[in-house]
């Protein structure tokens, strides 16, 4: 098959791009060096929310709203259910400082048009009986839902394959050769590939794709560790968030997913005792039943964090047909649909419905010349 666009990476961003491009009738070829969800997508709670703990930066707000709506309606186009659980999310405060924090989340969500609720301790326990008396207050965001990240990713990819998409695994891109502003070839361990466009969606590994093209992509891996417990009957539909980016959800299969904090440790994927103990402590105090469950799997993944924690979406300087779509940090799931849609518009129409001006790579080059 001759492809119009080569997408590098079969994580949630790459597969979302493949999906939206294929909906426009554009032939895509996804090159993945390992397998589906092998990077950050393989270690995520996949909580799709509007607003959130760190506050959504202004330029991302329209993306947030749109993507939230798009993902919610994807299932009709997918072969298998995404195991979506709607129930909203609860941001839990255990002390006075955290009470102040959740107030700011509440205000922030209101700015984005979310009619959330601030609850005191006993109201929070009425809404979520799993919570212990040590919970002082909570902010309830009704629009959050969570999905099975593997199902979302496989859904994007399989739906693309049904139209005009193809994927090849075990293909590691070693370089992208550009001549006179056009893509000459994509060099891989399996020989050269050719297409008019390239979408670089290799997550934390995206900077490594550019060897002969002289650009710096300021993305570094941020390790997130996670714990999965044994499964039990459904105890909650809510996702619960705590301070320091600790959160949990009960999956469709009944397991609890606990994550994750963020640390910069290169590509070292071993789990560490200190981190796991640190992010088990608070949830176990706030949700005592967790202490009765057993952990069956610990794992880690690498989120692509950009220099200013905004994603990078757009063409690279010197070659308008190489588009980077990466650097989404911990929120790749949440922004996947809008990122894929924007990339498809950029390629099909030359312009995007929602502005991606703030996500351009060139923002990093203002101060730093390479």
């Amino acid at each position, binding site marked *: 098959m001759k492809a119009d666009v080569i997408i590098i990476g079969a994580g949630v961003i790459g597969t979302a791009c493949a999906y939206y491009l294929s909906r426009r009738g554009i032939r895509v070829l996804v090159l993945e060096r390992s397998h589906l969800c092998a990077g950050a997508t393989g270690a995520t709670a996949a909580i799709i929310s509007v607003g959130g703990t760190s506050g959504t930066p202004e330029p991302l707000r329209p993306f947030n709203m749109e993507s939230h709506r798009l993902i919610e309606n994807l299932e009709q186009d997918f072969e298998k259910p995404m195991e979506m659980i709607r129930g909203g999310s609860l941001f839990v405060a255990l002390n006075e400082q955290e009470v102040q924090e959740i107030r700011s989340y509440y205000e922030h969500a209101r700015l984005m048009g979310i009619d959330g609720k601030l609850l005191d301790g006993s109201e929070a326990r009425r809404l979520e009986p799993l919570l212990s008396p040590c919970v002082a207050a909570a902010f309830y965001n009704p629009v959050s839902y969570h999905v099975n990240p593997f199902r979302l990713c496989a859904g994007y990819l399989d739906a693309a394959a049904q139209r005009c998409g193809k994927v090849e695994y075990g293909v590691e891109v070693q370089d992208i050769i550009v001549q006179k502003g056009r893509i000459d070839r994509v060099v891989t361990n399996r020989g050269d590939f050719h297409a008019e466009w390239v979408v670089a969606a290799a997550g934390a590994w995206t900077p490594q794709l550019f060897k002969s093209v002289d650009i710096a992509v300021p993305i570094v891996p941020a390790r997130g560790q996670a714990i999965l417990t044994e*499964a039990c009957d459904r105890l909650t539909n809510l996702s619960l968030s705590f301070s320091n980016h600790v959160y949990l959800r009960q999956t469709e*299969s009944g397991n609890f997913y606990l994550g994750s904090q963020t640390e910069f440790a290169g590509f070292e994927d071993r789990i560490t005792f200190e981190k796991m103990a640190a992010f088990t402590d608070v949830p176990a105090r706030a949700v005592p039943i967790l*202490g009765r469950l057993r952990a069956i799997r610990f794992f880690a993944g690498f989120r692509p964090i950009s220099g200013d924690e905004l994603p990078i979406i757009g063409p690279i300087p010197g070659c308008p047909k190489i588009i980077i779509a990466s650097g989404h940090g911990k929120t790749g799931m949440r922004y996947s649909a809008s990122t894929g849609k924007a990339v498809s518009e950029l390629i099909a129409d030359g312009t995007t419905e929602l502005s991606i001006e703030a996500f351009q790579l060139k923002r990093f080059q203002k101060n730093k010349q390479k």
Partner: protein
Amino acid sequence: MFEIPTHLNKRFEAGVARGKAIAVKINGVNIRAHEGESIGAVLTASGVRKIRYAPHPHDPRGLYCGMGSCYGCLVTVGGQPNIRACVTPVESGMEITLQDGFGKFTVESTMPVPAESEQFQIPLVIVGGGPAGLSAAIAAARFGIQVLVIDENCVAGGQIYRQLPPAFKVEQASKLGADYADGRMLLKQAADLSQFITIWNDALVWSVFESNQLAVERNNKLILIHAKAVIVATGAYERPFPVEGWTLPGVMTVGGAQTLLKSQRILPGNRVLLAGTGPLQLVVADQMLDAGMKIVAVAESVSHLIRGSYIFDLIRQPGLMFQGLKYLMRLKRESVPLLKSSVLAGIEGRESVVVAVVERIDDRLNRVPGTRQVFEVDTVCIGYGLIPNTWLTHMLGCRHEYDALTGCWAPVSGNNMETDKPGIFVAGDGAGVAGVLVATCEGAIAGLFAGAHAGGISTADAERAARPVRKKLSALRKFRHAMDRIYMIEPDLYSDISDDTIICRCEGVTAGEIRDSIRKGTLNPNDIKKRTRAGMGYCQGTNCFPTIAMILMNEFDVVPEALPWMTTRPPARPIPLSLLVTPGVQK
């Protein structure tokens, strides 16, 4: 849903006096039990074979592996769900509830007691207290090295040397067989060196952190251990051989059946078919006949039990040869048909096993049409060989290689049983399945050289002490190699798995779903896991990865060298989350 008969008693005493009679409650019904018995044994003795309904699909399950590896026999004890019946001893007044679907956790349950923690250093840690681990401990301790043996079971001895529960009394040791006596002797030697050897029972190495720090769970206590040298002697578990119906109650591994017979003195069933390959099923058949069970047939997948070309390697171990012949003659004497070139083709029943189907295979391991034989049974024992437990060696980053003869991966080790990771040694079936005699020799060698690595013995002394063991080991390995060639496990043996057959017992994933995911995705088991959930359950792929590997090799032409493992992650077995919320551990 669950029937609890009160009139059945499948205990037999042969040479043993049980522990004190006690009463337990199963689903509210008073049932007789004895101190020292496992919950699984009590259920079996009372005729409760259907122990649980799995959550997905909602089908009945019974005791399967009998050694704590498959997590199929989960029951609720007191308020705590998902306790393994097969390895948990009963206590007087215990309330056991059989689980329909998931175990029930209630919000009102009391907070768990916060765990304690401790850290220390020791020269030599041995993981596994079976023949290899104990031999290693003895060899090192004789040179005055402090050794800690960490064993998962309530009593050391491992699987083959499994001892009776301490509450049982031996009246006639001769009725317990040679393995029991050998195991007892080894344990006594270890006990005589108790000045140097500490044995922790009921303790689990569940993770490895930086610079090979071992995380251990023991009595709800978290212990972090630094050792100069580690010997991994974690033994083996039974190779899965999926056929339709193999998840039914009444289907168990041959080793699981043996544990019930040997150390619990309980009949695993009345009418049994054994299907598998190799000498273990002959040994177990012999023990079943001793206990008075009816064996309808033994199905052996190979065509010749002894082949001329290996005869020289075999007759050098006349004792072992003689034992084998003795087992065969016993079958003949008791008119038990030994069906050669025959494999298990299916198991039928609704609530438990009613029928087992055996089919002949030709020289190329293809099924021969029209050769299906149907047996009415209540028990099927599956025994297609063993697979090394490699979780820990994988966690420690050791290199592993596929062995085409035994059809599984094992850590690569050198002459001194050291892996490619300095200071990490292996011994016994965990280093490559080779049986108990090889295990004791490998253990002794590993003990000496790990001791040398830890600085307690000079290398010259270790070499001198190892010399006679090496000679014995070399002869035993030749014998074993000949046996492996006869009872070779080829991927083709797995050629007829129907799409409806469950491969991942934990998550109820079928062969059809796995094939579909391979066609859509990659030849990487991690991909299959993410798409199907195979390997995401309690046993973390231990009992489905071998089959998935066989499917990939057999149907999708993957060579073993190109087959990545499911990424090995902690914990080795499920651990209470409360263990992480440990006061005193720096966070």
